[in-house]
Each structure stands twice: as structure tokens, then as C-alpha cells.
């Protein structure tokens, strides 16, 4: 375990850029954690609007229902830490967007809900952005069984989650486990950013 004063941590982090692909349960909570510790620039992207059902886990507020997630996440981050630069993209990401939007990032966080999109970002990262570490959230539905949640490293992929629990109608994602996995992702990002070169 490396040790560092928070003043020094802030110094390092303020020059870093982290990309977050998706602003749902994983993305909104991960972005807030990174904003709190002072990552200088966050690049966020999502096409969705906030629904009441999102509030059981996503970092939004009741009065924001119906508004764009990217706009509200930027607003919420600014309320927590106004010194963070937030670049917000209102877009349904595809392969080309992923490259265009995130090619300048120090670390990229996968925060999609759909398995298909998770595969697309891994393949895009492998082919077009191989030097950027990609931190994934895989398997966090339901509650309990916390001992199954782990971190697995595979080349430049960092997998956070239990790698089993798939979301379904009878097995919803909920604040505690989604919060745990999204904050694990944020912690992996910190570890990567604070690694002394």
C-alpha cells in the first residue's frame, strides 16, 4: 500500500483525465467518487434521461427526473467539486465515438448496462486504444453474497464485480452492490493514476 498526503494526491490527480462511458448506476457513482478526490477532468457520455426507477442506485435527485443524465451528472459533480472540468457528451456511443471521445484519457471506465456494449468497448479498447487501461464493472445485480465480488486483472483490463450476477426483472441492480462495484472501479482508477512513473 502506497502512502501519500492528500495535498500531494490532489496535485497528481488535477492533471489527469478519466473517461466514463455510460452515466447510469456505475458511471454516475464512479464519476462522483473521482470528482470528490479531485481528478482534474472527467469525460462523460450517455444518451438517456433520468427515470424514477433509476433513483434506487444512480447519483441523481428526484427533481431531475426527465432530464438528460449527462447534464444532471455534470451539475451534481459541480455541486460537489466546482473545480473539476466535466466534458459531457449527449450521445449513444458507438465504436467511432468511443475512440473520438476517449482517446486522450489516462484511464477509461466502462459503465454500460448492456452486455453487448461492454463487449464493444473492450474490443474497441483492444484495437484502437490499447495503451489506455479499461476498468470494467461485470456482475453486480441483487444483494448479498459480497464475498463473490472481486478484482481481476487481464492485460490492460481491470474487471470489478462478481462476474456472475446478471440483471433481470427479478434480479434488479440496487444501490449497495452497484455502489460497491462502481467505487471499486473508482479505486482501481486511483491506483492507476497514482502509480509513480
Amino acid at each position: 500500500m502506497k502512502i501519500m498526503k492528500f495535498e500531494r494526491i490532489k496535485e497528481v490527480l488535477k492533471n489527469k483525465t478519466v473517461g466514463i462511458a455510460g452515466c447510469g448506476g456505475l458511471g454516475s457513482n464512479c464519476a462522483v467518487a473521482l470528482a470528490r478526490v479531485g481528478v482534474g477532468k472527467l469525460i462523460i457520455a450517455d444518451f438517456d434521461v433520468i427515470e424514477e426507477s433509476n433513483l434506487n442506485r444512480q447519483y441523481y435527485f428526484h427533481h431531475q427526473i426527465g432530464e438528460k443524465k449527462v447534464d444532471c451528472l455534470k451539475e451534481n459533480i459541480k455541486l460537489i467539486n466546482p473545480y473539476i472540468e466535466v466534458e459531457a457528451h449527449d450521445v449513444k456511443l458507438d465504436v467511432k465515438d468511443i475512440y473520438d471521445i476517449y482517446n486522450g484519457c489516462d484511464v477509461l471506465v466502462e459503465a454500460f448496462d448492456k452486455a453487448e456494449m461492454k463487449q464493444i468497448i473492450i474490443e474497441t479498447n483492444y484495437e484502437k486504444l490499447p495503451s489506455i487501461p479499461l476498468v470494467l464493472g461485470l456482475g453486480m445485480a441483487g444483494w448479498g453474497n459480497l464475498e463473490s465480488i472481486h478484482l481481476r486483472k487481464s492485460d490492460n483490463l481491470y474487471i470489478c464485480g462478481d462476474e456472475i450476477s446478471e440483471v433481470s426483472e427479478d434480479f434488479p441492480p440496487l444501490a449497495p452492490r452497484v455502489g460497491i462495484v462502481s467505487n471499486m472501479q473508482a479505486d482501481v482508477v486511483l491506483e492507476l493514476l497514482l502509480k509513480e512513473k
Partner: protein
Amino acid sequence: MNITLNNRPESFDQESLSITEILKLKKFSFKLMVIKINGKLVRKPDYESSFVKDGDDLQIIHMISGG
């Protein structure tokens, strides 16, 4: 052969196996996967023709919805 499967040692009686055969032997039936042999991405159409041999590092990542 002895290989590393998802960072853990794994042994098979055969000297080499295709990805398709390993998925069957391990009873991995997930719809979407990302598979890498020694860090090299193998796409679905190539599962049949890509072989794993002794000493290889095989990573099989199941894509799971939720987030």
C-alpha cells in the same frame, strides 16, 4: 497440457484444444464473451480454428448486463 485459465492453473488431458472444445469441456454457455489467448483477442468466428496449447494464457470474460 497445463494452461492458465483466468489467472488460475488448469489441466486438460489433451495436448491442444480449440476454444470451442474448451468452452464445451468447461460448460461455459454464456452468449457474449471476450476471449484472449496470450493477450491476443479471438473473435467468435475464430473459436473453432483457434487452438490453445501447453503453457498458454487463456482469458475468458463473460459479458454480463447490469450497471
